[in-house]
Structure formats: structure tokens, C-alpha cells
């Protein structure tokens, strides 16, 4: 997975995926899309980056434990959900502004549910990246162990033969 071809392609694909993820996440209010899908796409980008540049590259990109993202995202989502309570409205009531001025003469339909979606996005990124990092750590370790002892444990069967490709099965599920 360290071939120059893949690295070069990843350099192009990762930003495009992130951009598309942002588009998908933002249009989710009234059209197909939303925080969850956007979050999955961001994770796909991050995982692609990880596959291309190795296990430690993602630590440079996200220099903290993914659970921080989960906590942050949940916090934003909770805040969005709870603020209406302060105004005596039911939980999750959305503030809707039609024709919200965003500059450059453009007005958009704005809903505070957007922040909820952003929270969801962060949670999904945190969970997915954390999950895959954790899973592939185990697979990496097992693959290494399998290479050293020659005994491959049940789950590492597929990946033990080529340790370098070990993260692929874990990451590949989400493409």
C-alpha cells in the first residue's frame, strides 16, 4: 500500500472526498445526505490517507484520541438539542431562518439543525476512525506475531500472509 501511485492518487482523492463530504453534509437538511453520510465520507478520506501514508500518518492529522471527536460532536449535538428547552420549547426544536444572509448577496435557508448534523458528523468520524484504528492495531499486531511465530490466529488468517496489507480488510469495508 505504499506504492507511489497510490500515494499520489490519495493526495488527489482525499481533499476531493472531504469536499464532497462537506457538500453532502450541508445539503442533508432537505435532500439526501446529512451528518451521518458526511461523517462516513470524511472517515473514508481519513482511512484512505492512513492506508496511503501508514499507521502514524493519521496521528499527525488527528493528534488526539478519536474519542475527543466523539465527545465534541455529542456536545455540539446536545447543545443544539437543548437550547430550545431554555426557551421553553420542546427538545430539538429547530430555529429556521429563511433567507439567512451569508454575504456576497446570497441568502440561504438556514436551520439550526445544521449544528446537530455537524455534531453527528464529528461523532461518526470519531467512532469510525477510532474503531478502525483499534481494529487494525489488533490486526497489525496479530499479523506481526503471525510472521514471527509462523502461527496465525483464526482472525488474522487472511492478513497474516502479507503483513503490509494488514489494514486493508478493516479499511476496505467502508469504501
Amino acid at each position, binding site marked *: 500500500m505504499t506504492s507511489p501511485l497510490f500515494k499520489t492518487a490519495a493526495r488527489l482523492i482525499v481533499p476531493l472526498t472531504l469536499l464532497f463530504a462537506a457538500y453532502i453534509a450541508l445539503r442533508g437538511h432537505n435532500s439526501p445526505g446529512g451528518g451521518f453520510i458526511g461523517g462516513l465520507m470524511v472517515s473514508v478520506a481519513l482511512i484512505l490517507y492512513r492506508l496511503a501514508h501508514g499507521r502514524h500518518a493519521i496521528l499527525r492529522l488527528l493528534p488526539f484520541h478519536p474519542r*475527543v471527536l466523539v*465527545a465534541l460532536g455529542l456536545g455540539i449535538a446536545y447543545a443544539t438539542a437543548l437550547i*430550545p*428547552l431554555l426557551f*421553553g*420549547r*420542546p*427538545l430539538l426544536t429547530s430555529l429556521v*431562518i429563511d*433567507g439567512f444572509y451569508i454575504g456576497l448577496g446570497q441568502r440561504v435557508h438556514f436551520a439550526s439543525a445544521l449544528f446537530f448534523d455537524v455534531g453527528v458528523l464529528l461523532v461518526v468520524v470519531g467512532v469510525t476512525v477510532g474503531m478502525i484504528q483499534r481494529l487494525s492495531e489488533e490486526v497489525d499486531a496479530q499479523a506481526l506475531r503471525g510472521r514471527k511465530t509462523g502461527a496465525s490466529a483464526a482472525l488474522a488468517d487472511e492478513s497474516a500472509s502479507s503483513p503490509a496489507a494488514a489494514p486493508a480488510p478493516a479499511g476496505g469495508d467502508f469504501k
Partner: protein
Amino acid sequence: MNPSFVILLVIIPALAGLACVPLVNRLGVCRIIGALGFALNLVLALSLLSPDRALVTQLGGWAAPYGISLVFDAMSGVMVAAASLVALACLVHAAGSLPDPAERRYFHPLVNFMMAGVNLSFLTGDLFNLFVAFEVMLMASYGLLVLGRGKAQLAQAYKYVLLNLVASAVFVIAAGMVYGLLGTLNLADMARITAELAARDALPAGFTAVAVLLLFVFTLKAGVFPLWFWLPDTYPTCPIAITALFGGVLTKVGGYAVARLFPLVFLVGDAGPVLQQIILVGAVLTMAVGVFGALAFRTLRRSLAMFIIIGVGYALFGVAVAQPGAIAGSVFYMAQSMVVMAAAFLACGLIETHLTTDDLRDGGALQKTHPWLGVLFLVVLLSIAGLPPTSGFYGKFAIIRDALGAGFTWTATVAILAGALSILAVLRIWCSTFWGPEPAVLPRDADARAAALARVPSASGYAALVLLITASLGLGFLPQGMVSLAQSAGRQATTPGAYVAAVMGPVAPAVPAVPVKPAKATGTHAAPADASHDAPQPPKAHLETHPKRPARTAPTPAPAADPAAPTVPASPAAEEFHVRLPATPLAAAPHPAEHRP
């Protein structure tokens, strides 16, 4: 009291869980956050509890059949309060009994998230939201179940995890079928539609099948007869504080779901007697299996786990009898069983520490060395068996009285026999732990025993136990408040009209038989928020007073004020919250399900 605040019962544990995620390594802080959260929940639930009102909130302001309703009435309120109490006690006990590494491994976030799911499943008034709440609860419970990763724990965890995953898939299918058949997932709307259809003898084909699918899901969670086998294997493998939490709370969620949904929605028309028979047979066999299991199992934890199953049997028996008094008995029994079973497991933890074994045949003479623990444990055991001065009595009594009154003679006999045998099972446990012979110590065990005896059970273990026993005794000696709540829950369950009125709104303006030709609507949010904006539902709905009637909310036909011109505020500061009702002209139009020409 603004009914919107009902959601706090779910939000508080969820927020506490969130706060515990980054603080997971600072146990002291986590413990305080969790304990404060559960205590706050308990106080809030107790202060909202009232036998004659239901607090209903519609999430996001979407009106009843379209959005998600949360209903805090006598039945759900009692369960929420009991669950919060149990969670508080288990948290206190865990602080003393759970090894630090396990507690650091996300015990606190998981417990809090689990309780958020549990409270949501009690409060929700929407079938699919019930599924979501179950999943929140289950995901957290999977985590708790494998906490510490003991080998036995892992091996047994698969039973629980896989069974529940299959049940979840069945739940999804059943929810889809309910939506396909009835066109709604709101419990109140479902109740209204099924009552209407049953009155016309027009229940859709497959209605009973869907109900049985749901029954499968709920009874699997509750541990009812054909689906009880996983329970004595999985629960006892956990650290004892978690076992107590699971044993107290999780099974009752399944029981509550049956008690909530079936009298309300499914026990109608032709389907009623069939489902009643199924629940009845399941309940009776559950009691029988439970009591024999409690007599037969050789370890303390497994015996106690079988008492959970007996309790679920009684609760379902009351539901199957479907009389107001019997359902009241079920509610009372479930709430007290939560408290008492958790207390039993917490006491079991203390006993194990002293005896260094949980095998009943090894015997123990704890009465000599720990008389006060003996007193506490005896109170717990008598409450489980349901002897009169304790809290277990009223529930069983009400259920059996109404069952006899309604002609369920044989099944009531079985229930009485099961009660008698459970006294025997309880005495067996008592005699072998407190009045037994001094256990023989094998040389190999001697060190472990000495080590265990040196480990003085922390004060927190006793504190938790005393808390639960005080609550249980309070229920036993001063039952009036709880009885009136339970009776209200029973009346409410047998007269679905009141629940429907509370959720869907009390006023049902005559719906025109001919569909109103709706005005032109331009978008979802374009409708001006009208009178229903300020009061989407009445803050208090007096359950007894509303006659049973179709209660389709048709929001006051708005001054169809020009939806084409959405409010564009000059400054966002002046912006109000739009209550996102479906566009008014559409909502005023009759439901297509009922008035399709």
C-alpha cells in the same frame, strides 16, 4: 411544569455519560457525576409523578402522529424513578466493588448511556423510537457485559449479544410491518387506529402475527419462558454491581414494553384473546421454570437470577389478565422487583466476599459473624418471596386477586403455588448462606479465603444495599402513594382512550368526511405557527376525565395566512422558534388512512 422538561430524564444521564467520556480516567469525578445525575433523575421523576396527569412532550415540536412523543405518566414515571434509584445504588456499590481497571474501561459512560436508553424506552410513545432506545440501552449493556474481558464473560456474552441482535432485526421487521399495516408508529395513533378497526371488525391480516413478533422481541429481553435460557448464563458472569443493574433494570424494560404496548394497542378485537392466551401461557410457564430453577441451581448468583425470571412471570401474568387492578399489580411488582432484585444481587456480592464462594452447597454460617448483613439479606429475600409486610406482597396480591376475579382460576393457582415454592427457594438460599454449617476450607482455598476475608467490603456496598432496602421497606409499609400511582397506571392501560387523548391532544374537532381541498403550500416550514404553536399539547391531561374518543389533532385551522410569504425577520435576534408542524393546510386535511374515498 413545562412538559418539555420530561426529556431531561433522558438527557441528564446522556449528558453525564458524555461528561464521563473525557474524564474516564478520573474515577472520583466520574463517580460524582454519575451519582449526581442519577440522584437528580430520581428527584425529578419523583417530583413529576402524579397519579392523575400525564406529561407529554413532542420532540422538535412536531405534532403527535408525525413526530416522536415522550409520555411521562404514572406507568412510565414509576419505572423511571425505580430505575434511577437502582442505578444510583449500583453505582455506589460499584465504587467499592469494581476493580479500578474495569471501572476505568468506560464503566461510567456506559452505565450513564445505558440508563439514558432505559429511561427513553420507558418514556417513549413511538414504536420505532422504542427500538432506538432499546439499541442505545443494548449497545451500552454489551459493553458493560464484557467489561473486564473475563474468559467466561466473553464466552457467555455471545449468547446475550447475538440473541439481542437477532431480536433487534426482528424488531425492525415488526416495526416496518406495523407501519405497513397501520400507517403509523406513534403508540397513541396505533391505539386509536386499532380500536377503530377492531370496532369495525376490520383488523388487517397479519395483525396478530406482527403482535407476536413484537412479543418475541420484548419477552426475549424480559426472559420469558421459551426465551429465558440466556439469562442465568450471562448475567451472573459480570462483576456483581453490573449484574445487579442488569438484573434489576434490563429485564423490566422488556416487561414494561409488553405492559405498555399490549393492553394499549394489541389486545383488541379478534387478536386480543389469542395474544392474551400466548402471554398467559408464557407467564405461567415462566413462573414455573423460574421457581424450579431457583430451587435447582447450585450457585447463589444463578438462583437469584431465576428469581428475576419469576418476577417477570408475575408481571406478565398481570398484563395477560388485563384487568385494571392486575395491571396495577404488575406495575407495582415490576417497580418493586427492580429495587429488590438489585438489592439481592448487591447483598450477594457482600455475601460472596465473606464466604469466598457463591456455591450454595459449600455452606456458610454468616449469621454468626455478620448478623446485620443477615438481617438485610433476610428482608430482601422476604421481599422477593412477597411475604405480607414487605413490598413484594401488594403486587402479587393484586395480580392474583384480579386473576381469580376474572376467572383465571388455574393460572392463578399456579401463581400461588409458584409463590409458595419461591418461599421455599428463598429459605434454601438463606439456610445455606447464613444458617449453614461452617464451610470446610480446602488447603488450596485457604489463602484465597484469607485474602478475601482480609478484603473488608467497603462501606459503599452496605450503603447501596441499605438505600435499596429502605426504598423497598418504604414501599411495603407506606404503599399508599405507590398504590395509587399503580392503580392509575392500570386504569390508564385498560382505557387506551385516555392515553390517546393525552398524546394526540384532547380536542378532536369534527374531521370533515370529505377531504378538504388543501390550500397551496409552498414548503415545509412555510406554515405560520398558529395557536398550537404555543400549546402543542395541554400541559396536564387529566386521564380519567377524557372519554374515549378519536382524538386526531387537527390544529386549529390556521388563518391560512399567506404561506407564500415566509417570515423573514429583520434580524436573527428577533427570530422566533418555528414550531415545525407539518404545513397547516396538510395537517388540517384528514389522515389519508382514514378518509380515502
